[in-house]
């Protein structure tokens, strides 16, 4: 009942087929050149938009976060192997200001020395409290959620707070060190 399929006869004469194939190749080449020109146009537009967005971003920073009140919080990893960062929640004076869920790509970048700008905002001069909630998986396959609180004094001028996350063997308990860049 399940015999082999009969071979189909050639429905197009070889000569005509040759012409068709040549036509198809020419059409394909035309399509490729059109596609590449479209890609080139997209690349050029991308360059223009990147430059433009950078200018808008600079203006935005200048207007939204004036130098005297600006506070920026950065996150970096001291040891990539020790912790697999899942997410970070950030609170300033007990108010949630940002939360970030890390992708594999972002984790990899942090592991290679990348620094994530977690938050940028404005604060008045004086004493403030920063609370970071770290969710991560430690190298010993244990999920950890830790709250880290840091008190700081905001003075006139931009304040940059760099949080560096680390975990040491054997218990891989997350530790955060803070550096204040003025």
């Amino acid at each position, binding site marked *: *009942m*399940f015999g082999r399929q009969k071979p189909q006869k050639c429905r197009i004469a070889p000569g005509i087929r040759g012409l068709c194939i040549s036509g198809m190749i020419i059409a394909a080449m035309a399509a490729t050149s059109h*596609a590449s020109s*479209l*890609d080139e*146009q*997209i*690349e*050029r*537009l*991308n*360059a*223009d*938009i*990147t*430059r*433009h*967005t*950078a*200018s*808008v*971003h*600079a*203006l*935005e*920073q*200048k*207007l*939204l*976060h*004036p*130098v*005297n*009140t*600006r506070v920026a919080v*950065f996150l*970096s990893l001291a040891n990539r192997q020790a912790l697999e960062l899942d997410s970070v929640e950030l609170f300033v004076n007990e108010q949630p200001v940002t939360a970030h869920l890390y*992708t594999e*790509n*972002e984790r*990899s*970048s*942090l592991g*290679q*020395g*990348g*620094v*994530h*700008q977690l938050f940028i905002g*404005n604060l008045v001069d004086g004493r403030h409290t920063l609370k970071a909630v770290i969710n991560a998986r430690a190298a010993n396959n244990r999920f950890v959620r830790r709250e880290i609180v840091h008190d700081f004094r905001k003075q006139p001028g*931009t304040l*940059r707070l*760099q949080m560096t996350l680390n975990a040491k063997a054997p218990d891989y308990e997350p530790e955060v060190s803070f550096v204040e*860049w003025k």
Partner: protein
Amino acid sequence: MNGRMSLFLRTSIGVMAAMLAGVAAPVATAMDNSLATGVVRFALDTGEASSVVGLAMKLEGESADYLQARLMLASGQHDKARAGFEGVFNGASHRGEAALALAEMAQEEGDLTGAENWYQQARRTGYGEVVQKALLGLAELARIQGKTDAAGQYLARMEDGYWAAVGYMNLAADFARDDLDSSRALVSLRVAMAMAAKDTDTSRSRALLDQLNLRAGYLALGSEDYAKAIDFLEKVSLESYHTPQALYLHGLALSSKGNHRAAMQSWHRAKKFPLAFPGVSDAWIGMGRGYDLSGYPGQAGESWLAANAAYEGERVTLGKLSERITAEGAYKALVQDARSEDIQWFLADNRTLTQPRMAYLLRFMEEPGAQVAVRRVARLDEMVATLDASKNNLEVFIQALEGFMASAGSGGVAPQTAGLEQQQSDLESRLNGLVEQAATPAQVTELRQLKQSLAGAGRRMGALNEQILQRPERLEKVLDEARAMRDATKDLRYKALSLREQAARKLDALALAFVKKQTQHMTHALDKTEQQIAHLYEYLALENLGEGAQ
């Protein structure tokens, strides 16, 4: 709406604060160089280059030139990026990475000789993954040119892991295509499996192993080595894109060994997947075949009739999909709508594979050129969204600046500073008087400190007065800048939309061709089942005739 409102409030407050600070000087946007390097690296790795273009000149350290070149590449300035990478390659750090980037750029431009040269340099000067990628690049270049032996030699120098596994898988595909005997391809696939097993990224390793086992199973089946085929196919996980095809081939191998009941169990499982996946339509036909070979012609007929109904239904689905592509565009009909928003995250993995639309999207993405076409539209959509956000922000800034200039036009700050100047002068007089009366050294020291503080306050007030005098010009300048940017945003948005239309047309053509091909596949499957049903009826009629004659 809330987001926009809060943005407006935030902006207004920020703008007011900026006014009081005298509109930040250029130093305000600067960042410490040591931080800037890390921030730029993170932005480049995560595809957010536009937010850090301004930091390019702030980079320092041994990675600065390399990151600058990457920034050029990410912002579409290929010529500058090439020059930058060449400079880095001639330097002391990141030589391997720079050579690899140059090799990839050359390969994209079709310059195979240049690409080979740079890959060789990357292999020579790089470390770790850079060397692995360079060796894979060299192997792929050799393979593309038909030099499979040379490709094998490069692959042999690679360390165990994902990249080597991918190289051997591609080599196996070439062997399977060129050889009459599948042994060379199977050996390559076995090596690839051993390499993939060493990959530290478990999900990536699992996905690749599924694909390798499926390919090996298919080749073993073609060589009529059914036990080996079953062994490979049973290793494919049950939650993978390759599962339905593996189940179908598994059933085929079992059936070839005469185990029709077990074969039908595999096909029955394959039938649970949408017809869009490879192997599923064949599994529907296989069920009838299984019943027929097991001696149940009635059940076989029912199975084929059920398969017919399923194919008919799928043709209707495909017809509707085609109509939607024509009406709404392929990007919306196939890509955006496949992302069901109602799926809970903990169900998403299991349910996505059973959704026809997702199945068609996955299948479509396997077509040559489909990924490039979808990426083009997605990139342009992203650009339009970025421009929309910029436009919105700029409009808010302009509105707030215009409002502030109108209210500040009536003055108000000058009388306050005049009062402060008077207060400063009074305090200075009182302090001078006290200095003359100071008796003890402690009093002298304290008064000296007070005098310094007062002098500092005086200097700050002088600076403030200067800023107030310059403020209208500064505000006017910022406002002009914002207006010019808004106009530029509009022009760029128009260009982006025009290119998006062209890219969407190309994607639509590809998607419609794909749907047409799938419809033809369904028609062909329908023909096959109808043929089986006709044969079955013919056989039953002849049986009846035979019985009648007896």
